């Protein structure tokens, strides 16, 4: 279980998160939606300790992430797969080496590594791409390799940072199906941050909207679709005019 408790995070004068609280239950896929630049990715990076909160805490399986020592953080990270917005593949390594890197860190033997690489690439329909370099792959393929690298670790949690951003609708749909398939086959708990509502409706068990640094509404897909909150409605319908201050929501408050 992942719990965000009253998380505050500021960069310089920009207050990005202010009282962000959210519970992600075991086995569910929680989609966090919000304007671009509203702090969704910042919240996600707190889960793996890439960022530490100024106030508040993030708890994963009873462990407060920012209080973990180096060994504790390594142990925690071995249970979490992170799919980056632009895949973040190591461009000097082949697809196989990208997938094997995390496994080698976990001291997995080379035969198991080879099997895991094959299985993970099969799960994202990229068999045969083992010896290609990231520069030789399309945007959609890179995202799939990023997903394969995360699931090769057999994590308990999968965190997706804007998994469909920058993709054409068909490739985005393929990524959505892969996320659903991954959850069904591996039974992982997931957090997906996105502003792509098609993706959110397809993969979510619950949806939470981040607005002005805090959760504005959280509920099932149906609850969010039926919401009367004008800010959430404007966002999910993609209307340019309405109650929400898109600029303010994106930039956070400046003090």
């Amino acid at each position, binding site marked *: 279980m992942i719990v965000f408790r009253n998380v505050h995070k500021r960069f310089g004068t920009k207050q990005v998160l202010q009282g962000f609280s959210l519970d992600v239950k075991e086995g569910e896929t929680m989609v966090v939606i919000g304007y671009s630049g509203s702090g969704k990715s910042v919240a996600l*990076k707190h889960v*793996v*300790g*890439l960022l530490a909160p100024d106030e508040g805490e993030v708890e994963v399986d009873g462990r407060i992430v920012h209080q973990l020592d*180096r060994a504790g*953080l*390594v142990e925690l*990270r*071995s249970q*979490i*797969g*992170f799919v*980056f*917005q*632009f895949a*973040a*593949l*190591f*461009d000097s390594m082949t697809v196989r080496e990208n997938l094997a*890197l*995390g496994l080698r*860190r*976990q001291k997995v033997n080379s035969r198991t590594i080879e099997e895991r690489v094959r299985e993970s690439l099969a799960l994202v329909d990229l068999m045969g791409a083992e010896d290609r370099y990231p520069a030789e792959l399309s945007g959609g393929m890179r995202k799939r390799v990023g997903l394969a*690298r995360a699931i090769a*670790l057999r994590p308990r949690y999968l965190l997706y940072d804007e998994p469909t951003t920058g993709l054409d609708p068909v490739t985005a749909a393929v990524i959505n199906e892969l996320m659903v398939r991954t959850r069904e086959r591996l039974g992982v708990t997931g957090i997906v941050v996105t502003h792509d509502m098609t993706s959110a409706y397809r993969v979510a068990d619950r949806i939470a909207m981040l607005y002005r640094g805090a959760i504005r509404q959280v509920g099932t897909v149906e609850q969010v679709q039926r919401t009367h909150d004008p800010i959430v409605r404007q966002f999910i319908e993609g209307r340019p005019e309405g109650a929400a201050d898109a600029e303010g929501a994106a930039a956070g408050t400046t003090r």
Partner: protein
Amino acid sequence: MYNLVAVRVAGWISALGRAGHFLSDVTRSLRDVGTWAGLTAVQMRRIGVQSLPIAVFISIFTGIVLALLSSYSFTGAVPLYFVGTFVGKAMMLELAPVLVGLALAGRVGANIAAELGTMRVTEQVDALETLAYNPHAYLVVPRVVAATSMFPVVVALAMAVGMGAGWIASISLLELSTPDFVKGLRLFYQFKDVWFGLVKAMSFGLVIALIGCHKGLSTRGGAEGVGRETTSAVVLSAEMILVLDAFWAVVLL
């Protein structure tokens, strides 16, 4: 005006704090031998072996110029075999370490800063962390160990090539025989001449790699940020080489 000074001073203190924090992280990462040991050989080849051509190029022309300049300066008042003395001393004590150091500040320092900077802005460094690697142990320590150990090797070769070039220039362009050149070379030779140059080279390698890594990992803001930090790494490395050069002269000579 006072505000501007205060902001500048605060900026310097903050930069010093970040550099101190970085050094402490790198020092702690030395314990993670399993991560960095296997990666160091690759960096030794990239930083050391691949720098040999530029070092040889610089030292050949420096050796030739030194021989001709010394002969021109002596104007018959000083015995010509002192050309060997001048070429040897200048190459070992100063020109091989400093000129090669400055060239490698560009080649190695820029390469490290640009590579790590690109990795930072494309989230590859974050990806390393999520795969449970310590980025300092994986990225910084191998480069620092490689540069510190390989710079003296490169500079030693530059010293030898520079003196060789000076000798060839002396016997072919000046009226100096090989025995006379060697006599001059050995006249005031001390082993300290060699290790002084190599200690300097080692310190240059350490500083260039640390600055390149620190600037690279501090990069923010995409391609422009990578360009800015790379330039900054080269300029700061060149400045530090000159500062260290003076420091070692004061401390060791």
